[in-house]
C-alpha cells in the first residue's frame, strides 16, 4: 500500500524528475532536429546577406538568361529578369529577419509582463489589462494592418511592430494560465518560506526555471506567423517593394508566369516558405511535447 502511494507521487511529479533525454520520443527528436536545421539555415542566409559575401550580385539583371530551369549553375533557376532565384532567396531573409525578431520580442516581453501582473493581481489589474488586450484581440489582424497602412506609411518595421502588438494577448493568456498553475505549487511556497524576495521568485523560479519553454514555443510560432504575414502583404502589393527581394514578393511576381507553364518561378520560393514555416512550427510543437508533463498509465 505504501509503495503504491510512493509510485503515484512519482507519476504526478514526473515532469520534474525524468531527465529530458528520456522524455523525448523519436518523433519529437526528428521535429526538433528539423526545426533546428531550419533555424540554422535562416541564420546562415541572414549572415551571408548582411555581410554581402555573395558569389554573384543577386540584384544583377541578365536578360539573356531569362527563365532558365534549375541546373547546376543556377540551383533554383532564374526569374523573369535573369536573376538567380537561390541568391534572391538568400537575400530575401533580410526582409523579414530583423522585423520578425522585433515583433517576437515585443509580443514575448509585453506578454510576459502583462501575464505575470494579471496572474499576481487577479482582482483589478487583471480585469483592466485583459479589457485592453481583448480590444486588440478582437480586431482581425489583417484588417488592423490595413488600417495602419492607411494611416501611416507601409514600412515593414512598423507593420511588424503592430503584428507583435496584436499577438500580445495570446502570449499573455498562456503565461497567465501557466503562472496561475505554478503559484499553487509547493516549491513556490517553499521559496516564500525560505524568505526569497518576490522579484527573485517571479523572475528566477517562475519565469526562468519553469515557463521559459512557453516563451520559446511562442517565439518560434510568432516567427513563423511573421513570415506568413510578410508573404501575404507582399502578395497584396503593400509589403516589401519589388527590386528588393523578399520571399512573398518572389512568389507573387512569379505567379504571373504560372499559366505559361513556368511554375518554378513561384513554386520554389513557396516551397522554401513552406519548409521554413513548417520547421518553425515543428520546433515549437516538439519542444512543447518534450517540456510538457507526460501522463503515464
Amino acid at each position, binding site marked *: 500500500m505504501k509503495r503504491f502511494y510512493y509510485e503515484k507521487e512519482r507519476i504526478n511529479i514526473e515532469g520534474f524528475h525524468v531527465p529530458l533525454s528520456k522524455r523525448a520520443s523519436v518523433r519529437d527528436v526528428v521535429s526538433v532536429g528539423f526545426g533546428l536545421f531550419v533555424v540554422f539555415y535562416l541564420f546562415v542566409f541572414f549572415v551571408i546577406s548582411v555581410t554581402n559575401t555573395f558569389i554573384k550580385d543577386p540584384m544583377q539583371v541578365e536578360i539573356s538568361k531569362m527563365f532558365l530551369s534549375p541546373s547546376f549553375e543556377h540551383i533554383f533557376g532564374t526569374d523573369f529578369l535573369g536573376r538567380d532565384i537561390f541568391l534572391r532567396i538568400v537575400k530575401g531573409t533580410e526582409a523579414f529577419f530583423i522585423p520578425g525578431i522585433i515583433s517576437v520580442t515585443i509580443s514575448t516581453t509585453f506578454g510576459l509582463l502583462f501575464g505575470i501582473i494579471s496572474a499576481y493581481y487577479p482582482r483589478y489589474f487583471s480585469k483592466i489589462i485583459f479589457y485592453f488586450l481583448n480590444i486588440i484581440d*478582437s480586431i482581425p489582424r489583417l484588417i488592423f494592418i490595413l488600417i495602419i497602412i492607411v494611416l501611416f506609411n507601409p514600412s515593414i518595421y512598423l507593420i511588424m511592430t503592430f503584428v507583435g502588438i496584436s499577438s500580445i494577448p495570446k502570449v499573455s493568456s498562456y503565461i497567465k494560465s501557466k503562472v496561475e498553475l505554478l503559484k499553487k505549487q509547493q516549491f513556490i511556497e517553499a521559496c516564500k518560506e525560505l524568505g526569497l524576495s518576490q522579484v527573485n521568485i517571479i523572475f528566477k523560479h517562475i519565469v526562468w526555471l519553469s515557463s521559459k519553454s512557453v516563451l520559446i514555443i511562442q517565439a518560434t510560432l510568432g516567427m513563423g*506567423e511573421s513570415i506568413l504575414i510578410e508573404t501575404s502583404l507582399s502578395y*497584396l502589393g503593400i509589403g516589401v517593394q519589388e527590386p528588393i527581394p523578399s520571399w512573398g514578393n518572389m*512568389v507573387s511576381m512569379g505567379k504571373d508566369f504560372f499559366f505559361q507553364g513556368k511554375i518554378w518561378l513561384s513554386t520554389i520560393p513557396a516551397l522554401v*516558405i*513552406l519548409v521554413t514555416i513548417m520547421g518553425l512550427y515543428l520546433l515549437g510543437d516538439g519542444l512543447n511535447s518534450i517540456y510538457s508533463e507526460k501522463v503515464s498509465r
Partner: protein
Amino acid sequence: MTRFLKLFIKELLSMFLLIIGVTALLFLLFNLMPGSFPGKGLGGAEYLKLLRRLFTFQFGTSIVSGRDINTIVFPAFRNTLILTIGSIFLSILISVPIGIFSAYRGFESYSWPFVIFSYIMSSIPVFYLGYLVIYAVSRYTGYLPIYYPYGSERGNPLISYVLPVLVLGFGNESISEIVRLIANELKRVMNTDYVVASKARGESVLRSSINEGILIPLISIIFSKIPFLIGGAVIVEHVFNWPGMGRLAFQSTLNRDLPVLIVIAFLAVLCVRSGMLLKELILYYFRPGEK
C-alpha cells in the same frame, strides 16, 4: 435558467463595452493620422456622432464613390459570411478525424503522415494554394467556375462558392492547431479515471470522452479563430476576385476611403465578439456546473 440569463446579460454587457473600446481605439488612431478627411476631429461630439452612425447602422456615404455605404457593405458582408462559415465547417471536417486518429496510442506511426499534412496545409501561403488550385482546375478539368458571376445570369453562384471555400478551408492556419489541441486533450481525457472506468464497463472510450475531449476544445478554438479567418478571407477574396468584405477593405485601403474602412472594422469586430458570446453560451450548455 436564471443563471443562463445572468451569464447572457453579463457577456452582452462586456461585448458592448469592448465594442465601445474598439471604436474609441479606431477613433484615436484616425486622429493620429496626419492630414485631414471628412469626419475627422478630436472631441467627444465627433466621437458620439460616429457611435450613433455605427450603432444605428446608418453608415453614411463613401468619400470616393459617393454611394451609400450600406448598399456596398452588406452584400459584401453576406458573401464573406458564407465563405467564412463554409471554410470553418470544412476545416473541422478535415482536422477532427486527424486529431482523433492521432490521439490513440499505438497509431502514432500511422497518424504521423496526416499530422504532417495538416502542418503543410497550415504553413503553405494561401494565395499560392489558390493559384495552384486555379491552375489545376482550369487547365485539367474545367468543371468548376474560378470566378464569381457578377450580375450576369450565366453560371450558378452556388457552384462558384466551391473553390474559395475549399482553398480557405484547407489553407487557413487553424488546421494544425485544431489537430494539435484535439490530440492533446483527447489523450489527456482518455487517461482520466472516469473514461478508464467506462472502458472497464465495456463502453466505447471515444464515446465517453467525446464531450470533454473533443467538443469543448473544438468550440473554444473555433470561435477564437474567427479573426484569423477574416484575415485569410482578405487574401482568398483577392485571389478569386470574390466580392466580399476583405476585398472591399483592400480596395478602400488603396483609395484611402476611411469611412468604409471603419465600417468594415466595426462589422468584423461585431462578428468576432458575437462569436465569443456564442462560444460562452455553448460552453455553458456543455458544462453548466463550472464557474
